[in-house]
């Protein structure tokens, strides 16, 4: 077997050198719709391509080399849908990676990939609207994401409030899909934890003043404030809140994990502020990804969604391999379970791992993918859970207060649902 692999690797190497000798004649295209025109979007696309390259080194998926056709979404739903349509209709892809924002992924899912029978795997969309859509049976099992839903984030908010013994909490949330989602979830989680939500106030961005909104929230005299805001309006709202004598007990969503927010509000007022965030798992496979990333790109994978994007691409390609040649989008989606099987053969997230997976799958076995975000396991709605951290601000940035493993997180969420 080892010799066979070496020969295959040699052949792939030779073909890469541009000679006429080719291991494979065919190329399969997969699509990617990612916001490459924004600065944090480009690395997400690059790391997906990095996964594709490693699979191609292992001889490609389902017998063909893989070409990832990348289109920019500009974080705009219209542009994203156009891009996805072009990829599905013109390039004929059966697998689509993306998009990043839930607001872009959603219209692509409902108007392009589901009608077209294409599997869509997003690295970064966190809205629970997808869960709802899947529960209603409208995704046809074609939707997956490697990013934990906002449900993890809100459950951690409830955990912090419970641990701190807060009884009455006011919620300020950003008036967009994400913020409304968070407000709805956190209200449910607080209720489940026996905490009263005194008021839940929407904050629109680009408003000259948030005084009225803050006045509204402060009226219920809460003993803590939950913030699902972005740094810009978050700063305004929190300064207003503090100046009106609001409590300094705050629980922050991960969107406020920003130096700008800390500096402009002032560290002296944030002593009782605790943030929540999903975390990368503390497992060997995540470290291996980090090392591989540093070697390839020369920097730590610190941007948002990088590990998730890598896993999304890897799992999609593994599923293509498992589904076999000329599989439809639905076949590939159905094969995802075969490559993320908890009782399958463990494989690493690299060229060697992909080769092992090929052999195992060819022999009729199943595979347990151990990726950059840990052992990825999708639930019936294509969602994943994630470990979490509680953090606080310090002079130099943020500091971890508590780490909760995947098991802890799942256990707490389960306790809320009782």
């Amino acid at each position: 077997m080892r010799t066979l692999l070496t020969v295959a690797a040699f052949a792939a190497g030779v073909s890469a050198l541009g000679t006429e000798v080719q291991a494979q004649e065919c190329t399969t295209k997969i699509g990617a719709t990612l916001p490459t025109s924004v600065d944090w979007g480009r690395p997400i696309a690059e790391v997906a391509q990095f996964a594709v390259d490693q699979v191609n080194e292992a001889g490609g998926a389902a017998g063909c080399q893989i070409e990832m056709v990348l289109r920019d979404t500009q974080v705009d739903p219209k542009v994203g849908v156009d891009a996805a349509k072009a990829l599905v209709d013109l390039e004929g892809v059966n697998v689509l990676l993306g998009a990043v924002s839930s607001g872009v992924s959603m219209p692509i899912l409902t108007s392009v990939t589901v009608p077209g029978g294409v599997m869509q795997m997003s690295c970064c969309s966190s809205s629970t609207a997808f869960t709802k859509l899947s529960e209603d049976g409208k995704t046809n099992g074609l939707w997956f994401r490697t990013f934990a839903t906002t449900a993890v984030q809100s459950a951690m908010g409830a955990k912090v409030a419970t641990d701190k013994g807060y009884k009455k909490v006011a919620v300020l949330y950003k008036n967009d899909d994400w913020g409304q989602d968070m407000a709805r979830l956190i209200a449910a989680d607080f209720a489940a934890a026996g905490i009263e939500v005194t008021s839940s106030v929407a904050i629109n961005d680009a408003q000259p003043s948030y005084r009225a909104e803050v006045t509204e929230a402060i009226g219920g005299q809460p003993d803590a404030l939950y913030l699902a805001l972005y740094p810009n309006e978050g700063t305004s709202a929190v300064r207003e809140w503090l100046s009106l004598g609001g409590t300094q007990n705050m629980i922050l969503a991960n969107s406020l994990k920003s130096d700008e927010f800390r500096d402009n509000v002032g560290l002296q007022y944030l002593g009782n502020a605790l943030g929540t965030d999903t975390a990368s798992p503390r497992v060997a496979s995540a470290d291996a990804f980090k090392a591989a990333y540093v070697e390839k790109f020369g920097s730590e994978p610190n941007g948002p969604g990088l590990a998730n994007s890598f896993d999304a691409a890897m799992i999609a390609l593994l599923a293509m391999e498992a589904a076999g040649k000329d599989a439809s989008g639905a076949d590939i989606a159905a094969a995802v379970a075969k490559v993320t099987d908890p009782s399958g053969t463990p494989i690493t997230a690299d060229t060697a791992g992909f080769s092992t997976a090929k052999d195992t799958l060819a022999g009729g076995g199943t595979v347990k993918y151990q990726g950059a975000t840990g052992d990825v396991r999708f639930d019936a709605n294509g969602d994943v859970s994630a470990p979490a951290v509680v953090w606080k601000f310090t002079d130099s940035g943020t500091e971890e207060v508590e780490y909760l493993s995947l098991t802890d997180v799942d256990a707490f969420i389960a306790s809320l649902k009782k």
Partner: protein
Amino acid sequence: MIQHLVDGILVGSFLSLGAIGLTMVMHILRFANFSHAELLSIGAYCALVFDKLFESLLPVLSAKIGPLSMTGALSLSILISMVVTGLSAVLIDNLVFRRVRQKGGELSMVFASFGMSLVIRNVIGLIFGLSSELYSRDIAFAMVLSRDPLLLVKPDQVFVLIAALLIMFVLYLVFSRTTFGFALRAIAENPSLAQVHGVNLKQMIVAVWIIGGALGALAGVFYGLSYQITPVMGRDLVLPIFAATIVGGIGSVYGAVLGGFIVGIASNIALVVLPSGYSPSVPFLMILLVLLIRPNGLFGEARA
């Protein structure tokens, strides 16, 4: 409810200042200047630069005045910023609007002003970065005026309100008591006839821009003092300021003052009835409502 009313008056004070400049420009130069709110940004950032400069050169000036966030350095900077912003407005007019005015129609002016606002906003973003800035990082805590009903007011906001009212009173005196004021009003009424009577149109246009710019700068600094300074503050403020101008009636300085307060109060009170998600729509509803009842605004006059 009382808290919302008081908040509305305080918000209204800087909307009014912005609207006075806008209404004058719209009346005399006869175009909807969508870049007017950018003058507030220019003013706020200009004051920020001079504030930091004075504080480092003369540390004595960085002491706070009474309970305010205001410092000696900042008050000096405001004066400089008013001059600089007024001159920038004249410069922008010379570079862009005057040329478009000579060749293009009213609509070209509107588009030119849209373009100008994008240019100014992005240049500010390029120079100062996109994150928000503050004159003072300390949070000025509100004074409790009454416990039941709960009424909180920040010293800074009272200062802003008083200063704004003072400036408006001075303007009123200028417009109603001086030859300059009469000349301005004459130009607005009938440019040709005013010129026949020896009013210099070019000088008057420069004066309008300087006044508009200076008031804009003041409004910008007051806004920054109450909230924060960002490159997109012009974008956030342009609609409320336009609403104030239109509600008050284009061309009426008193209307602009009143319009500013009406829009400020309405947006705040609306939260009592409307969920906060709908608050951005309030200025538009105000415009619709006033225009339905008085098509020229509260104080506006019909003109051909």
